[in-house]
């Protein structure tokens, strides 16, 4: 009883705290000074049409590097927690999983290539359209999820996943250092020519970095999905 009252009080208190926000208290009439500076400077400084991408990859690029590190740590944690040994399955024969339906198998064959292509499209155009490395990486991981569902016995090649992930992570830091040596600072996209705003090859190193993030996120999420299957050695 006491617990219920406390839970009710906590929820009611939080509702009271959120009420002004729900009534639009936080909504400004115009963006603040920082946001206005980003909106005017991003296209001029970096040639990036998508301001959100410019913030994520260059203005707050260090945060994104940390975010990718957090995702890596979580992937490693999930992989370490969900091994066959730790789940108590030991050397027991893996139980036969029910085969996938023909519809799923056929659709997987048709869709896998399209999904990977779509994911690559999303992260290559991150500086021009809504999208980017994280979104594209998730789409690529769905292609691998379809594959895992259609062939439950199949195993992802951990060597390839680890190679893609570590190479793209190292190249991400390498692009950042390139910015430090050739331009004004770590992760500065002006290390590469800016090009004409709105074209595919523009915004300096932003599309390169976001593509690397896309590959890394795709490999990491595929690793998580594979680990969640629960039959890792």
């Amino acid at each position, binding site marked *: 009883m006491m617990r219920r009252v406390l839970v009710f009080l906590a929820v009611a208190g939080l*509702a009271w705290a959120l009420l002004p926000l729900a009534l639009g208290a936080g*909504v400004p009439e115009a*963006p603040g000074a920082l946001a206005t500076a980003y909106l005017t400077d991003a*296209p001029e400084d970096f040639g990036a049409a*998508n301001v959100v991408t410019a913030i994520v990859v260059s203005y707050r690029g260090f945060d994104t590097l940390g975010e990718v590190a957090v995702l890596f740590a979580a992937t490693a944690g999930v992989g370490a*927690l969900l091994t066959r040994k730790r789940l108590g399955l030991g050397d027991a024969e893996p139980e036969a999983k029910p085969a996938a339906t023909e519809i799923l198998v056929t659709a997987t064959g048709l869709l896998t290539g399209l999904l990977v292509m779509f994911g690559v499209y999303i992260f290559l155009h991150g500086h021009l359209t809504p999208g980017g490395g994280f979104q594209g990486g998730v789409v690529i991981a769905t292609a691998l999820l379809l594959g895992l569902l259609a062939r439950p016995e199949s195993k992802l090649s951990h060597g390839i996943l680890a190679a893609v992930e570590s190479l793209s992570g190292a190249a991400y830091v390498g692009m950042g250092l390139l910015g430090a040596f050739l331009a004004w600072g770590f992760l500065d996209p002006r290390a590469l020519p800016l090009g004409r705003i709105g074209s595919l090859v523009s915004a300096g190193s932003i599309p390169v970095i976001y593509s690397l993030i896309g590959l890394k996120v795709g490999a990491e999420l595929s690793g998580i999905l594979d680990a969640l299957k629960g039959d890792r050695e």
Partner: protein
Amino acid sequence: MSILEFVSRINPVAASGAVLVLVGVWGVLARPNLFKIAIATSVMETGVNLVILSTGYIRGRTAPILDSAVAGTATDAAGAAARMTDPVPQALVLTAIVIGLAVTALQLSYAVRLRAAGGGSSIESYGDEKW
């Protein structure tokens, strides 16, 4: 203040986000099942993301992407800035979504491990951990 006036002042995105936050908090505090707690955290994160996003939307403006839709010609950067919404909350939420996914995956893995070790999936079976 009449009810109609009150309803018209509600920001729909922030209000639905606030409801999701409350549902998530209730789920975390009141549900004993570890898997439901993990999902409730995820619901709460979605709510928080909606509330943050709602603070960046400015009525009558469009997405912060410089193209022909905001700048007749793609060179009029200053004029285009006056037609775009606040990009900072969107960038923050992009980060928050990814971190939220990582946290949810880790939470669920812990729940699976605890159950595989024979501890059950109810938080009540871990009374020893109580302070």
